[in-house]
């Protein structure tokens, strides 16, 4: 792993500039919080880091080949169980049970995702992201749809399972513990 260098990148859609001459250094092992207002290109920046979007100009260096992602939409396989969705990408299946317990999903492990509430799906997507072996963790609005208690549990879970990886959280919902350790990025 190494620092990730984002140098003078530009991105526009249909002539509308979404990211304008953005330069950043994401230091290895550091947690970053993107908490700028909606429509400022947070998701676009995450999609560029995921390799799903190509920049119009500028360059990125040091982006790891393996990335853990929690999409803004859950993007779970609805017909499969909670456990199976996680197993499909998890590096170590022995950590799944513990994670399910931590986020209150243990009893729902064998239920099909389509039977879960929005908040449960969000937590499933979070576990899937955190248990995937990677050098970079990207979480897009991880607290959306969670009540105060589950939001706090999710924040604690994220912090416990970062395992020294570089991470970027895009969120307009704050959390004290994450605020305390994260470096804020304004784009």
């Amino acid at each position, binding site marked *: 792993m190494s620092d990730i260098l984002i140098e003078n990148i530009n991105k526009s859609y249909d002539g509308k500039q979404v990211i304008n001459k953005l330069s950043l250094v994401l230091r290895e092992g550091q947690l970053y919080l993107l908490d700028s207002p909606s429509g400022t290109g947070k998701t676009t920046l995450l999609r560029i880091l*995921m*390799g*799903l979007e190509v920049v119009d100009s500028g360059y990125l260096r040091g982006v790891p*080949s*393996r*990335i*853990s*992602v929690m*999409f803004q*939409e859950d*993007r779970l*396989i609805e*017909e*499969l*169980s909670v*456990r*199976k969705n996680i197993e*499909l*990408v998890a590096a170590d299946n022995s950590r799944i049970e513990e994670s399910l317990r931590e986020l209150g999903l243990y009893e729902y492990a*064998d239920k*099909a995702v389509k039977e879960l509430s929005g908040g449960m799906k969000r937590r499933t997507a979070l576990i*899937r992201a955190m248990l*995937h072996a990677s050098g970079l963790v990207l979480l897009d609005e991880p607290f959306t749809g969670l009540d105060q208690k589950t939001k706090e549990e999710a924040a604690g879970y994220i912090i416990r399972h970062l395992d020294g990886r570089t991470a970027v959280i895009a969120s307009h919902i704050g959390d004290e513990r994450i605020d305390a350790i994260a470096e804020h990025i304004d784009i």
Partner: protein
Amino acid sequence: MRNNAEKLGAVLIALLFWQLAAKHIDSSILMATPVEVLKRLTTIWRDDGFVEVILFTLTRISLGYLLAVAAGLLAAFAANAYRAIEVLLSPWVAAFRAVPVASMIVILLIWVSAVNLSVIVAFLVVFPVVYTNMLAGLKARSTALWEMAKVFTMSRGKYLRYVLLPQLKPYMLSACSVTAGMAWKAGVAAEVIGTPPRSVGKMIYQSKIWLNTADLFAWTMILVLLSVIFEKLFITLLKMLLKVDKQT
């Protein structure tokens, strides 16, 4: 339950209508009664070469059908990956769909022996439907899940089994179900026109020549039965194959 009773009632009324029409015509040469057809069905299986005739038609139509399903599937994946393939295939697919089966059979008879004609005709009737349906399924697949699989570097096998196949399943089942009956209709039409020896098509043709309507109806019923059994069996196997256990 009520639906089944209604259906049974409708069938009985249709049989009664048939019986009355046959009695009115009063000529078993022109129209056999349901009873005569039923009697013939109880003896036809003892005819010399019955099993051979059934096997001839069954193997050829099944082969044409299975080859078309496999080719349609592969072609749809190729066309989805490379637009040039989709463009190149489009006139062929359009032609196979538009050309009447009877014309197709007569044209093919110029180049192909009657023995294998039903394989090719079943293939040409089934292929465009499977190809078009599967291509539509591939084009409609979830981009969101494809991106998820890509970002998590999911293996091709896992992507195919857990992400893509469940999305393609309804398209595949619909295509295979619709075309199973089509393959039998077109395949037997090819046999009736080409009259290969020891085929169901030849039996039907001979029944017509000898004005033996009891035989004609009996062979037709056997064909309908074979077609239905084939379709049910194939669709059941396909469903088993495409079943993704949510726990596994």
